[in-house]
């Protein structure tokens, strides 16, 4: 009898001790979960900072990161929105995607006072703007710059600190810096630009087109890239490949990553590339010792000095809040997370680790950054580039238009069509696309 009572008492005490432990999770406040769609952690510091946010909010908010390669993000967004999926609260975006998916994004004009937006670089807002509204927060800006290998310049008898300023100077350097081996094969190309399908080809054409004073569409939205300025731009690229033979036609199959690899392997003397090229050319894991410390960065050379000294494109990106987040009632929390993830501290970290330029104007005037031997050339090139046109073509049917133009550009560069005919075919295709079904 006593032993039975003792056993009963023990059970009651054990239950009183165990029950709170088991029941506590049921009664504890569940964290607000925010789901972010972006590339993986290797691309920049945003993942790390998003994961830190849970600690910062004392567990009130938890961030789930949905990692996807660049191309996969667009596919994921298209599928999700078409299916009415609500699993994405925040997504990485750029001008093309914002123009395609703005109907599914939450406008944030009323959250973000214009005076705060005024502290950003002028082109920083383009990737998150569409249809007259702002749909997200800029994350970083990046431009296309001109890179050159100073040691190769010196070996060829050029001043290593004087990169080409004009097309003629580029051609002179390019031809001299292209070398062949005893078997007649090229061992070093003078110049490289990515011309792969899927955006590099169009980006390359855009850069030359803007330096020629042209544009893809006019103010009425009609294609104008097949005018004399477009022809001039395409001719410039064509001649580098076929007339001066200092750029490899094989660049038609090389994207940005492969082009950086070739440059960082010391096989190309000059290239045009995004800002990420700067970080990679200093990285011992990605560049040879002959390249590290021997790379210069500056603005793109002029095509016609009477038009403009330079022009470039930007690849600025941002984060957008989806309408799904608003429907779930977490749009306010998403906005706070975005402010945290795009703070000046994070922007600085992205700059130092990946060469992504900050969208905040104030950082460009920071004296410490200006003195930094690693960052100051990149900052100076960005400030200089900002004095000239910095543009990027985006449109609601961007994917289709891009493919139509790139197909004809590649036909022209492969000598399958005369240059003007290729441009005219592309313009006709774009007109047809813009007209709609």
């Amino acid at each position, binding site marked *: 009898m006593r032993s039975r009572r003792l056993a009963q008492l023990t059970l009651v005490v054990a239950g009183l001790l165990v029950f709170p432990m088991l029941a506590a999770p049921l009664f504890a406040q569940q964290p607000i979960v925010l789901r972010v769609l972006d590339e993986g952690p290797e691309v920049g510091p945003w993942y790390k900072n998003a994961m830190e946010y849970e600690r910062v909010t004392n567990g009130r908010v938890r961030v789930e990161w949905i990692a996807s390669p660049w191309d996969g993000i667009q596919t994921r967004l298209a599928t999700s929105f078409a299916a009415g999926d609500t699993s994405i609260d925040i997504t990485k975006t750029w001008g093309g995607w914002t123009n395609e998916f703005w109907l599914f994004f939450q406008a944030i004009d009323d959250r973000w006072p214009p005076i705060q937006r005024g502290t950003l670089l002028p082109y920083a807002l383009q990737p998150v703007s569409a249809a007259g509204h702002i749909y997200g927060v800029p994350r970083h800006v990046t431009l296309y710059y001109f890179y050159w290998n100073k040691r190769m310049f010196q070996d060829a008898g050029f001043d290593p600190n004087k990169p080409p300023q004009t097309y003629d100077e580029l051609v002179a350097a390019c031809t001299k810096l292209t070398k062949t081996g005893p078997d007649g094969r090229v061992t070093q190309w003078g110049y490289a630009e990515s011309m792969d399908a899927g955006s590099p080809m169009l980006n390359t054409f855009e850069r030359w087109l803007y330096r020629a004073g042209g544009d893809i569409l006019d103010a009425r939205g009609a294609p104008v890239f097949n005018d004399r300025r477009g022809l001039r731009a395409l001719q410039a690229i064509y001649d580098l490949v076929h007339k001066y033979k200092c750029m490899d036609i094989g660049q038609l*199959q090389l994207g940005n990553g492969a082009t950086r690899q070739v440059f960082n392997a010391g096989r190309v003397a000059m290239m045009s590339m995004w800002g990420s090229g700067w970080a990679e050319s200093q990285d011992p894991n990605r560049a040879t010792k002959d390249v590290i410390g021997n790379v210069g960065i500056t603005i793109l050379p002029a095509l016609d000095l009477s038009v403009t000294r330079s022009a470039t494109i930007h690849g600025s990106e941002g984060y957008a809040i989806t309408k799904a987040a608003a429907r779930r009632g977490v749009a306010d929390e998403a906005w706070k997370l975005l402010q945290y993830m795009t703070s000046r501290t994070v922007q600085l970290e992205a700059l130092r680790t990946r060469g992504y330029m900050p969208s905040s104007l104030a950082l460009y005037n920071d004296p410490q950054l200006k003195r930094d031997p690693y960052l100051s050339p990149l900052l100076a090139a960005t400030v200089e580039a900002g004095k000239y046109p910095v543009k990027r073509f985006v449109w609601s049917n961007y*994917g289709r238009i891009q493919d139509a133009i790139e197909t004809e550009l590649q036909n022209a560069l492969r000598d399958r069509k005369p240059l003007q005919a290729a441009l005219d075919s592309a313009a006709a295709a774009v007109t047809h696309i813009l007209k709609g079904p």
Partner: protein
Amino acid sequence: MYPAGVSDILRPRLTRRRLHTTPLVLLAPALMLLVAVGGYPLVGAARISLLQFRINAPERFIGLANYARLLADPQTLDSLGITAVFVAGSVTTVLILAYLISLLLYQEFPGRSLVRTMVMIPWALAPVVNGIMWRSLYAPNFGPLNDALARLGVLTHSVNWVVDYPVPSLILAYVWKVLPLPTLVILAGLEGIPPDLYEAAHVDGAGSFRRFRHITFPLMRSVTLLSLILMLVDALHVFALVDLLTHGGPAGRTLVLNYSIFRTAFRYLDFGYGAAMAFTLTSLILVLAIFYLRASAEAALAIER
């Protein structure tokens, strides 16, 4: 067992009906899964193919307009042509090489087992790995393929494989990957032929070519047909290789139908038209699959005989 009054004529029928229900009941879970995973998306795609379904506009029923557009769309017809060339080129190459390799592996030689195992290596690679590997091999100027051929004295200048020979480059990369499977199928077929037939032919004075023509090839007809259909279905499916190696370029020269479907739906956000293209390709593959099942049954019968 049966209620009283049930005639003798009915009893066997009742017994037969009860026996046939059992397999269906056992198969039901698998069939339900198949319907859910395969049938539901198929029906959904068929429905979408009858709509104007763009992401930025409300969906609208348009009947067979997407299919009519498919027949008149120059880009789609171009894709069909490129697909036909790719499929014909790769399937022919695969079958010829599979036969040659199988005949070699059929012979006795030291290390045959090791060689048979090594032949399987390409098949074991993931399609993505295969695509990345060949992209590296084909790299212009500084790629290993150009380098090796130059050192062997075959090339005097670097070749831009993907730019100048896009479809053959794609075929080569594809054939390398898929060759092991038909090789094994054909090898299994060869090993199923009774050796007595060859001995008798040899006694009668028939040479290698006549033995192949009058014994091997006729007896291998079903297996060959099986491999052919298998390869046709697989070649029509090609996607990862195109995405990684060429993105459908240069200038759309490798825009096979499967990749065109992906671009239409997920890049151009024209889901209705993309679904119509996908459904057309699926129907074609379904027809081939039916031929495959018939050929498979015939091959099994041939082996039994």
